[in-house]
């Protein structure tokens, strides 16, 4: 659905991490943040509402 709406699906990530696996969770966060940095700012950051007014 995201792809259909023109949003890069790389921007959404789902991972299963147990609450007992803190290092795993941190690793997931860190790598995802890196990936997002490479993708650049989200197109959703533009305030479409203000443009209207």
């Amino acid at each position, binding site marked *: *659905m995201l*792809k*259909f*709406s*023109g*949003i*890069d699906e790389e921007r959404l990530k789902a991972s299963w991490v147990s609450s007992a696996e803190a290092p795993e969770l941190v690793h997931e966060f860190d790598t995802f943040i890196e990936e997002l940095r490479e993708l650049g700012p989200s*197109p*959703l950051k533009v305030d*479409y*509402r203000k*443009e*209207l007014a």
Partner: protein
Amino acid sequence: MIDSIKDKVKELLETGEIQGFLGLVRKNGHIAPHLFQKGEELRDMSLGDNIIAGDSRYPLNKYLMNIAKAYPEETFGVLVRGCDDRGLQALYTWNQLNPKKVLAVGITCPQDLADACECLQPYPENITAGDCAKAGAQKSVAAIDALVLSERFSYWMDEFVKCIKCYGCSNICPMCFCNECSLKCDDLVKSGELPPEIPVFHHTRAMHMVGRCVDCGLCEEACPSGIPLRTLYKKVGSIMDDKFDFKTGMIRGQRSPLNKIDSTEGKK
């Protein structure tokens, strides 16, 4: 077409098989929903056009739910097209209507309507009158799939930004029967802000249409801003078909795979 429907309804009313028939009536030059209870009322009956299934439509299933709630012991007849029939089937599986208390009188849609709706099944399972038209070609979803990502994004955002949050789409939707709606929850969707948060507002509704949308297209017809909602939900439907072989309302008794608990599923 309309004469055979009138005859059928008249017969059903006279034998007492149904206590009322929910259909369309032409009154003062307008077409409106009507609960027929006497044979003579059938004179002004309409099928959405003068004699055949036309493009004046109402969510008759939705009205039927209200009527059935008020008169749970009575059996009612209802005029159905392909989309209404899918809606009825879906409502049965969601326990919103009792199939024993509903008698559907089916009509088929003409080919031009089927093409305009891109309808996958422009006829109900039990047809009282009319010939089956062929399924309409699915063009609207393909047209967006053909765009590159950034074009799709600006296409949808330009559409969504027109939303005036009138809730017309959900008010007319026969599948919107929830007592509590997350889109009407003030904590999630702030009131007094226009347009609502996009695309989240429309995506939330799209997600809730998973396994529910019967592709009747009333939402898009009702939308005063002309947002191509049907295209959005058609995509939802096609994903369900691709991934789960699920066609809402088309296969009798098929339950949505997303709210089915199957203990054998994970063991395969």
